[in-house]
């Protein structure tokens, strides 16, 4: 942000564009407080947080990738792969299952990263390949069978509480902090933003661009695999064909509505969380008022447009 003191309406507009999401959330919450019964209860808030947690986790990774001027369509497939592997390794205990699913994330992220950074594919195409093939592979692994999960440790992850707050929400909150910290305070974070800002310049400045890019895609996929794991824990079953379906669109929407530009060079971590929360609240409001899917979809479209319009980048030169 420019610290230049420019006492002009531009400042207000800028403020609006930055805080537009929060304002929208506020408005929606106010509406619900007045018009939705039982909205202002802890159990309701709790449900919203639980439901939004996996999307937030995926969106965090997506935000990082978008910060490098990329995009990752394969996150849903990564969730499916993670979900597929869990029942296979759960027999060795929950830790083994976690390791297996995270490794799947590492593998997919590595492939995406290499395709983008080394081969030089456009991110949308590079990740499209795994978007198509990844879920297929996941279903192949599970033979299409939905597997119930009964491991109490895993179920605790999905539906247990810690100090009165769901474990799931703790995990998501912790990951938000980690990613925010990563972006703001670490060398890796600054490099990532520089790559998104101007990749050729970053390369010439002697930064290990390829390594950073590959790492970003790995981080994104690992976050997706964690989301997949938590989803399995929450649903208490592993269904590779259903978990994380279309989540890439929800995640991208959350990131963009949260004010992170698709052109890279900037990542708004809290905005991303707010973006996910906003979309969650929209959907919850629609469901609570028992509206039909058609209405829900059209309202979502309008809200996305308004939120992005308000938060859009003003052309500076």
């Amino acid at each position, binding site marked *: 942000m420019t610290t230049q003191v420019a006492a002009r309406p531009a400042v207000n507009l800028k403020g609006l564009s930055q805080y537009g999401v929060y304002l929208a959330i506020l408005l929606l919450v106010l509406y619900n407080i007045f018009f939705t019964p039982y909205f202002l209860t802890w159990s309701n808030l709790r449900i919203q947080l639980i439901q939004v947690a996996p999307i937030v986790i995926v969106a965090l990774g997506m935000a990082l990738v978008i910060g490098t001027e990329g*995009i990752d*369509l394969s996150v849903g497939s990564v969730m499916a792969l993670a979900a597929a592997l869990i029942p296979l390794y759960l027999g060795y205990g929950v830790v083994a299952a976690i390791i297996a699913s995270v490794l799947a994330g590492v593998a997919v992220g590595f492939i995406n990263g290499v*395709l983008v950074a080394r*081969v*030089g*594919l*456009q991110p*949308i*195409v*590079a990740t*499209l*390949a*795994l*978007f*198509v*093939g*990844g*879920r*297929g*592979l996941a*279903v*192949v692994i599970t033979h*299409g069978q939905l597997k119930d999960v009964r491991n109490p440790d895993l179920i605790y992850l999905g539906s247990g509480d810690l100090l009165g707050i769901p474990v799931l929400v703790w995990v998501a909150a912790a990951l938000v902090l980690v990613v925010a910290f990563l972006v703001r305070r670490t060398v890796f974070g600054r490099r990532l933003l520089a790559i998104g800002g101007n990749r050729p310049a970053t390369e010439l400045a002697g930064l290990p661009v390829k390594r950073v890019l590959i790492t970003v895609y790995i981080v994104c996929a690992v976050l997706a695999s964690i989301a997949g794991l938590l989803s399995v824990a929450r649903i208490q079953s592993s269904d590779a064909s259903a978990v994380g379906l279309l989540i890439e*669109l929800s995640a*991208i*929407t959350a990131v*963009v509505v949260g004010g992170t*530009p*698709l*052109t890279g060079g900037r990542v708004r971590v809290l905005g991303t969380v707010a973006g996910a929360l906003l979309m969650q609240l929209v959907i919850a409001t629609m469901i609570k008022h028992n509206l*039909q*899917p*058609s*209405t*829900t*979809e*059209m*309202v*979502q*479209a*309008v809200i*996305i*447009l308004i939120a*992005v*319009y308000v938060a*859009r*980048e003003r*052309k500076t030169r």
Partner: protein
Amino acid sequence: MTMGIAAKTPTPPPEQAAADVRKAERTDRIVGTVQRQGALAVLVVVVLIALAAFPNFRSFDNTGTILVAAAPPMLIALGMTFVILTGGIDLSVGSLYVLGGVLAAWASQYGFVAAFAAPLLVCGAIGVANGLLIAYTRMAPFIVTLAALLGARGLMRAISSEGSETFLVKSDAFRRLGNGSFLDIGYQVWLVVALVVLGMVLLARTRFGHAVYAVGGSADAAALMGIAVHRTKVWVYVMSGLLAGLAGAINAAKLGSGVTVLGTGMELDAIAAVVIGGTLLTGGAGTIAGTIAGVLLLGVIQNLINQVGNVNSNWQQVISGTFLALVVVAQTYLVKLRRVS
């Protein structure tokens, strides 16, 4: 002191350097051609293998089935090519396709013309909205058309009682368009051929086409050179919307009803076909011929997977994904070769 020129014999001498440059230019052209026609080359290879391996593939009927099935995706990919050439993207085409089909089937009760007019009007209008928002508010095409994807699907559900009502095609003329044929080739295929040729002429031989390339190559430069950038952008989204609606309409004519459960993932297929066809996602370079090859390639691969028969549905997707990656990596490698030389 004399100058140090003679002190060092330049190696190689300039003549050879010039020859090198000429040689490089020649390689450049050859590689460029292969790169541009890469999808076609792969298509030819795949078809040859298929002809050798699968007796059924050869049949005239099978070819007809492939072509007719490729008709709607071809129209959508045609529109998508224009959009991507300007450096944009249109995610709403899948929804517009379904919406177009439902509208066409519904409107067919008012006759043949209405069956076309309704989808073209509505989908065209959504295309206009996409184009205006993208051109004049500088919102990212990705997000605008993502919203349109949701909005159009909502609209489709709203007019079909949440998708539960399937309108049947009432106009016989319209129905014939879907299943009739001329010279044993379906009307749909003729229509698509005509539109594709039109698209090629539009792109290569009109000012509008050149404006499309210019906008994708560098929107700023195009604006400064006096090209109506905004208008060009609006037009490509309108075209994409119209073509998606038309694709929905001819599909409805073929199916005889406005099926509501179509079209998910259609936009990604179209994007994949365009990219496999050698069009740069960043815009400014690409051809319709490449897109055609891309669409047919995807269609033929699907057909082959079926010919093999009994391939588990999940393996099919693994194969598709792998194939997609291989083709795109090959493309990129060819482009790179070209840059370095």
